[in-house]
């Protein structure tokens, strides 16, 4: 790749087609923004990569596949997936909802937490087929347009992350906990209920503060 290459048509499309927001920066890697300025070290394939459009499967499932209907963030998807397709991977790779993260891939870290029918689960320990007809909410489904969910807002305000990799899982657990009347509202109960979400940066103190702050806002107390 050369400097000349960086100014050709495909690169301009990437730069203009994807507004340089923090979200897009994280979602598509460095391609959209860095291509305009630092063009010497980014592989062409990365710069040229655009998310493929999400297309439901119209045809009958192939051998080894089965049909599944998932309502994700309010949108119905009809997909053909193999039996061993893990829900997390279908969300990330098939539906391009890459806000949900793969951490340990064994239900030990909580980075993959999503809500299924309003309940927080580890999406790495489900096959997609066992969620036929389920309603799934991922981190992408929390904000209302440009208005962040109060828990997202609180995580921002309280700097409740460092590297950010666990954050979407932390937020999904927090949203579920704040809706659950069986979980106590004191700090100890929140810590216990959040213990399935590991933060290697150790932002636990700020995460707790963010959750309790969001509770106040959601109850209209702040």
């Amino acid at each position: 790749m050369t400097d000349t290459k960086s100014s050709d048509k495909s690169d301009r499309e990437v730069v203009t087609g994807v507004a340089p927001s923090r979200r897009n920066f994280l979602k598509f890697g460095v391609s959209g923004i860095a291509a305009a300025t630092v063009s010497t070290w980014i592989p062409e394939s990365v710069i040229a990569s655009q998310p493929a459009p999400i297309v439901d499967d119209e045809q009958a499932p192939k051998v080894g596949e089965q049909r599944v209907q998932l309502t994700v963030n309010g949108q119905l998807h009809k997909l053909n997936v193999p039996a061993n397709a893990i829900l997390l991977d279908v969300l990330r790779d098939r539906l391009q909802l890459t806000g949900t993260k793969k951490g340990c891939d064994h239900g030990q870290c909580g980075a993959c937490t999503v809500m299924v029918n309003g309940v927080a689960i580890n999406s790495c320990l489900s096959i997609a087929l066992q969620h036929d007809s389920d309603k799934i909410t991922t981190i992408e489904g929390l904000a209302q347009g440009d208005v962040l969910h109060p828990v997202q807002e609180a995580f921002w305000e309280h700097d409740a992350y460092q590297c950010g990799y666990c954050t979407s899982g932390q937020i999904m657990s927090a949203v579920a906990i704040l809706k659950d009347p069986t979980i106590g509202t004191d700090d100890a109960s929140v810590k216990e209920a959040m213990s399935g979400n590991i933060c290697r940066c150790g932002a636990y103190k700020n995460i707790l503060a963010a959750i309790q702050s969001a509770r106040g806002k959601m109850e209209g107390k702040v």
Partner: protein
Amino acid sequence: MRTFDYSRTQSTAQAVNTHAAPGQSFYLAGGTTLLDLVKLDVMQPERLVDINHLSLKQIERLADGRVRIGALVTNTALASDPLIQEQYAVLSQAILAGASTQLRNKATTAGNVMQRVRCNYFRDGVSPCNKRQPGSGCSAIGGHNRSVHAVLGTSDQCIATHPSDMCVAMVAIGAQVTVQGPNGVREIPFADFHLLPGTTPWLEHALLPHELITHVTLDAPIKDSRSAYLKLRDRNSYQFALASSAVILVMDGQLITDARIALGGVGTKPWRALEAERVLIGQKADLGLFTLVGAQAMHGAKTYEHNAFKIPLGQQVVTRNLRDLTA
């Protein structure tokens, strides 16, 4: 991850028939153990039989006072059920002491009963392990055997602890496991459901081929009893027990008139301490007595290189639970 077939079933009979078809089948409920171990290639299904659509999600009080729990009741639903919290506090506490919120939301009652051991040599897929590969040997004996390795009920073939907290409460309460198989329905006493490793550690439970757990029915609550679960572990949450105790007591003033004691984290199966109960029943509540009861509970323990601390810890988790419950 290996490939497998998948069958969604609508009735217990259909599930059992599907499971009985040729090829290695596993029932899929929550999947929190199964899919973890399939990813590690420790469990190698040719077919998953999805039972999540069966009508096994009820908690019901039976006419005789017992409480019947459907196989698919989640750990969260069971722990937060008002009847369970009121009549079987030890069970609710034990469930909430295990795993994480997300896992409890998905894990089921029957799945918890069927969960596999946490021994790293079992999970790594390569070390000699008699559970995973009969006759290959036990890497934990002479290996690293500190946290999830037992001191009660071990054999020279396997020393892995049974990892469940819920099952420790259930063995203290007393229960029947209802199973349905190709030859009909039968009940297995909970205390007989999990097997000691002995010379056949790959046989972990009393299920016959293709049998499916449909319910766990708790014995009627003991009248005027109090109960508690105490769990000691390396961190304060989301960690398997180093030692735990489920205690149910009936008291007349300071006199202990009935008692149930079971231990987790120290045994190769959910461990009922019948002799320790006998030492306790008929005596007056007293810390000296509780120390004797704790010692009796760990009687016959055999330690390994890294887990000798489990004998005093097991004694203390019984003694302290008795002390707090009678305070």
